[in-house]
């Protein structure tokens, strides 16, 4: 039986880091299928981010959200806040959040990792690490709707008037403008420290990149047959 290589990154590679032009080309090529897969599977990966946001809301503002529902790929948070859409009518405030606004970093991360031939487990680990930041964006989108955009009557009822609304605004800006695109790139950097050190031009660091690649290539593979290791 042929040995299965579980880690493509462990294949023997040149010690020199890839040219940046080559890296950019690979990233561009991987972005297309990554974004397509992300968009087509939005109903599924949105569940993880939505449930994590629901759990985060239970910490940030216990009792504010009574249920999380789905409408297509959108997340629908049913709150416990009472609203009066017309005289004599009373209902609960329901807010919708588009999770794609906070999860588009996932295909970016996958494209970056595939461009540097990362292993599947590293991609999966990075994708899992993205979820709390996606949840942050979704939760503070919801809080911004309740605490700021829905008006003073709702924000007072929610207990979010005053300084909490200022904190929500700042957290919402970070969750929508910084985290979605920045965190995937930062994680990619964390997974590719030897590559970055080699690009930095330090002889010592470059040697570190080369030695790590060599060590990976020489290390026994999990799942390899004894014959394949000889």
């Amino acid at each position, binding site marked *: 039986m042929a040995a299965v290589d579980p880690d493509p990154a462990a294949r023997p590679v040149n010690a020199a880091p890839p040219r*940046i032009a080559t*890296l*950019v080309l690979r*990233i561009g090529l991987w*972005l297309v299928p990554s*974004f397509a897969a992300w*968009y087509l599977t939005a109903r599924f990966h949105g569940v993880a981010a939505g449930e994590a946001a629901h759990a985060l809301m239970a910490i940030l503002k216990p009792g504010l959200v009574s249920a999380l529902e789905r409408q297509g790929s959108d997340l629908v948070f049913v709150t416990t806040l009472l609203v009066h859409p017309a005289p004599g009518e009373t209902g609960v405030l329901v807010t919708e959040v588009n999770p*794609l*606004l906070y999860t*588009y*970093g996932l*295909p*970016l991360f996958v494209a*970056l990792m595939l461009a540097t031939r990362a292993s599947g487990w590293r991609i999966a680990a990075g994708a899992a690490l993205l979820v709390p930041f996606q949840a942050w964006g979704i939760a503070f989108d919801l809080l911004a709707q309740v605490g700021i955009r829905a008006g003073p009557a709702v924000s007072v009822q929610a207990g979010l008037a005053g300084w909490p609304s200022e904190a929500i605004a*700042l957290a919402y*800006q*970070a969750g*929508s*403008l*910084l985290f*979605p*695109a*920045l965190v*995937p*790139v*930062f994680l*990619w950097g*964390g997974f590719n*420290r030897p590559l*970055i050190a080699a*690009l*930095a*031009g*330090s*002889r*010592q*660091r470059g040697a570190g990149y080369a030695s790590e690649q060599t060590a990976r290539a020489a290390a026994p593979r999990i799942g390899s047959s004894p014959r394949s290791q000889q």
Partner: protein
Amino acid sequence: MARFAIVFAVVLAALFAAELTPPVQSAFVVPWTAGLVRLSAGLIGLFDPHVATLGKILLSTTNGFAISIEAGCNGVEAALILVAAMLAFPAPWRHRALGILAGLMAVQALNVVRVVSLFYLGQWNVAAFEWAHYYLWQALIMVDVLVVWLLWIRTLPRAR
């Protein structure tokens, strides 16, 4: 890595918080955004005379389609990330200054491409505009920041 992460986070948090304050918004962000709109309109005007500007709004005089350049689309956040990354990475100050100057130009150049492309994409198809606006261009701008930073660290002098 730990030192880089801490310095990067602190510098970025400080720059981002400062950017959101009213004085910085009125003194820098709003004029910057208006300048970006005028630059984009000037470039569009080279091949399409049916464009007008109004503050941060870019308007087609042919069909009335307009886009408003808001936070996240003016390239300021991408610039802050690049500046924080260059300040956090060990490098001589001269290289940092040159890197920030050249890097900001590269990021803003691609941002102008984003604005112009979205202006025409929106006139063609609103769904395509929203997809490109909310998801694709955000990712591409960040890739641009990453590539500029990688190119910059490659130009740094070797450690002795």
